[in-house]
C-alpha cells in the first residue's frame, strides 16, 4: 500500500512520494477559497486553489489553520470573500450568498473529536443516517468493533479520533476536513488509519484537506503541501 511507503520515509521527508502522487489530481478538484477572516491578532487572507485530492496545510498553532477549515465548513460567519466548490458557490459576501454547513456536507473531523457524549459509539457513527451494516463495517475497519455500545467517555483519545473520522466518513461527505486528526494516535496506528482514509478517499473520490502542525501527518496523507504562517498561505517549497 502506498501509505506504508510514506510511513517508511517519514524522517527525511517524502518529497518524491508527494510529487509522484500529485500528477493524478493536477487539474484540481474545483475548490477555490478567496477569503479574509479577522482573527485575534492577525488576518487570515488567502486565495487558495488546491490541485491535488490530498492536500495538507501545515503551520504553527495560531496561524489560522482551524479557522480556514471552519470557513470551508461554513462555521465562521465572519468570513469575507468567496468560497466555491465546483460549480457551487458556498460563500459570496458581495452578493450575500451563504450555504449553511448542512448543505455543504464537508466531513469535518475536529481535533478533539467532539463525539456526542450522550450517544453510544454506534449512535455516533450512525448519526448522519448510515445503516447498521455500514456502521458495523466502518467500526470493523477502524478497529472499533468491540466498543460499539460504549459511551465516548469510556474511550481513549485515539479511539475517539477514529470514531470521529468514521462518523464523518459515514455522512457521505463531498470532502473531508481533518483537523489534526491523528494527534492522539500512536505512530503505528497513524499509518494504519491514514491508509484506511486514503483508501476511502480513492474509492469514493472524496478529496481530503488536512490541517496539522505535524509534518509527519501531512506526509502520511497528502500529495500537496501548503504552509500557513500568520494568516498567509504559500505553496510548499516557496517558504519551507
Amino acid at each position, binding site marked *: 500500500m502506498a501509505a506504508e511507503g510514506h510511513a517508511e520515509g517519514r524522517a527525511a521527508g517524502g518529497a518524491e512520494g508527494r510529487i509522484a502522487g500529485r500528477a493524478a489530481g493536477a487539474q484540481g478538484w474545483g475548490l477555490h477559497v478567496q477569503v479574509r477572516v479577522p482573527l485575534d491578532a492577525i488576518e487570515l487572507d488567502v486565495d487558495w486553489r488546491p490541485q491535488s485530492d490530498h492536500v495538507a496545510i501545515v503551520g504553527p498553532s495560531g496561524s489560522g489553520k482551524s479557522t480556514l477549515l471552519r470557513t470551508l465548513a*461554513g462555521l465562521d460567519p465572519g468570513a469575507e470573500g468567496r468560497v466555491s466548490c465546483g460549480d457551487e458557490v458556498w460563500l459570496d459576501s458581495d452578493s450575500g450568498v451563504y450555504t449553511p454547513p*448542512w448543505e455543504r456536507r464537508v466531513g469535518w473531523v475536529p481535533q478533539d473529536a467532539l463525539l456526542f457524549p*450522550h450517544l453510544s459509539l454506534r449512535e455516533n457513527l450512525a448519526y448522519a443516517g448510515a445503516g447498521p451494516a455500514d456502521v458495523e463495517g466502518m467500526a470493523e475497519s477502524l478497529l472499533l468493533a468491540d466498543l460499539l455500545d460504549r459511551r465516548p467517555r469510556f474511550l481513549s483519545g485515539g479511539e475517539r479520533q477514529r470514531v470521529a473520522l468514521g462518523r*464523518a466518513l459515514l*455522512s457521505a461527505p463531498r470532502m473531508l476536513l481533518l483537523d489534526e486528526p491523528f494527534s492522539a494516535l500512536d505512530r503505528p496506528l497513524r499509518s494504519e488509519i491514514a491508509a484506511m482514509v486514503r483508501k476511502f478517499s480513492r474509492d469514493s473520490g472524496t478529496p481530503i484537506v488536512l490541517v496539522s502542525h505535524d509534518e509527519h501527518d501531512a506526509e502520511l496523507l497528502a500529495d500537496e503541501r501548503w504552509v500557513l504562517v500568520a494568516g498567509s498561505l504559500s505553496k510548499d517549497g516557496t517558504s519551507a
Partner: protein
Amino acid sequence: MPILLSTEWLIGVAAVQLMMLQPTVAKAVPGSGPAVEVAWTERRADQEAYQTPETLRVLAASSLQDVLPVVARAWDAQGGVPVRFSFDATSRLAPQVLRGAPADVFISADDVWMRWLEERGGVDGQSIRRVATNQLVFVVPSGAPDPPRDAGSIAAADLPRIALAGENVPAGRYARAALESVGAWSSVEPRIVRGGSVRGTLEWVARSEADGGIVYRSDALAEDRVRLAFAFEGEDPPAPAYSGAVTARTEFREAAEAFLDFMGGAEATAALSAAGFGPAGAGGAVAQAPAVSGGSSVLDGSTTLGGPMGLDPWSAVRLSLIVAFSAVLLGLIPAVAMGWLLARRDFFGKSFVSMIVMAPLVVPPVVTGFLLLSVLGRESALGGLLAAVGLPIPFTLLGATLAALVVGFPLYVMAIRAVFDTVDRRFEEVSWTLGVPKAPTFRRISLPLALPGIAAGAVLAFARALGEFGATVVLAGNMEGETRTIALAVYSLLESPSGRGATWILVIASVMLSLVALLGFEGLTRWQRRRMEDHHGR
C-alpha cells in the same frame, strides 16, 4: 472548571431562596402589609425617671390605622407621652403580646382575642375597656349596577365572589356571624374569598376582583372605588367593638391608662366618629371587663377562637403539589426558550429582557403578586379576555400556579441558561456539518445535552413553587381546597392557637418535600458535571 462554578452558584442561589422564605412569610398581608409603625414624635425625653416612658408603644387593630394617628396628634397636643403604633390584624397582634412583644397598650378589634389574652395573663383584666365601635357594611365596586339592599338578599343576589377577611381576623368572624344571623351563611360560603385583612378584602372589591365584600364602615368610607350597599344593623349580632387594655408587661402603667382614658374623651370620640367609627358606648356596650365577656353570639364562642374553619392539611399538601407540578410543566417550554435565548443569542435589549425575567427573584413576592393582579385581574384587558374564555386568574388554581411559576421562573431560566452556556457549541456545529440542519440538531444534540440543567431548573422551580406565599396570597387568595397551599395553610394555622397539630403535619410535609427537591437538584447537578467533565477533561 466553569461547570463547577456555575453549579456551586446555582446551589448558592437555591440557599438564598430558602433563606428568603422566612421574610416572605412575615411580609405576606395584602393591603395593609405587615405591622406598620408610625412614629409620632422625635421628642427624646431624658430617661431619668424610670416610670416616664420615652414613647408609649401601642399595638392596635389594623382597621384603626388611619384614625389612631389623628387621636395621637390630639393627645400629643395636650402634652401626652409620644405614642408609637404598630398596626396589624388583631389575630396576629394578640399572640405577639403574649410572646412578649414590646407593647404598653393593646387595642383589639374584638373581645374574643382580648379575653384570650386576659386568660393567659397577657393584659391586665382590670384595664380592659371599650374604646370604639364600628359597623359592618356590605360594599360593592363603585360601578356595580344592582347591589343587594339588605343582608337577606345577599344569598339570592348575583354575586359570584364575596370577599371576607380571614376566619381568624375579627372582621372575618363578625362577617360570618352577621351572615349566619340572617341565615345566609350556607348559601354564601361557597362564594367566599378570604383576604388576609380587611384592607386586603377591600382592595379586591375596589378592583372588582370580588363582586362584593363585608368590611368595616370606617374602611369603606376611606375607599372611593367602592360603594356602600347596606349596613348590617341591629343587635344580633352585636356591632364590632374595639376594646383596649394595658399589657401585663408594661412598665408605664399610668401613661398607658391615661392614653386609654383619653380615647374615651371628647376629642378622641370626635376624631373616631369623623372617621366612621361609633362611640365607645354605642350599642349599650359598657367599658367594663365583665361586659366584654357578656353573652352575645360573637362572644359565645368563649375561648374557642374558631381556628381556620375546615382547614384540611392534606388538601393543602395536595394543592401544593398540583400547583408546583403545573407551574413546572407550564414553564418548561418558555424556560428552555428563554434560557437558550439568553445563553446563545445576542439581540437588542437582551439585558433588559434578562432583567425582567430575573426580577421576581429580588422583587418582594407580594409586590410581584400585586403586579400580576394588575395585569391579569378582571379589570385589565388581558385578565378580562382570559376570564371571557373561561380562564379567570384571580382566586383560582390557575392563578396560584401562575404566581408560583412567575416567582420560580428566574431559577428555572438561570439553571437552563447555565447549562446552555457550558455545553460546547461545537457539538452542534459538528452535527450541522454532518448534514443535520439547525432544528433537528437542537432536538438531537442541544436538548439532550442540556437535559440535566433543564431538570435541575425544573427541580429548583418546583421547590420555589412549593414555598411560594406572597404572590399567591395576593393573586389567588387563601381559599380552602382551591388555592390554599401548604405555605398559606401554615400561615392561617399560625394565627389560630388551636391549629398546632395540623401545623406540624404541614411543616413536616413541607420540609420533606423541599429536601427531596434539593436532593434531586444535587443529583442532577452531579449527573451534568460527570457528563460534561469528561469532555472538558480530555
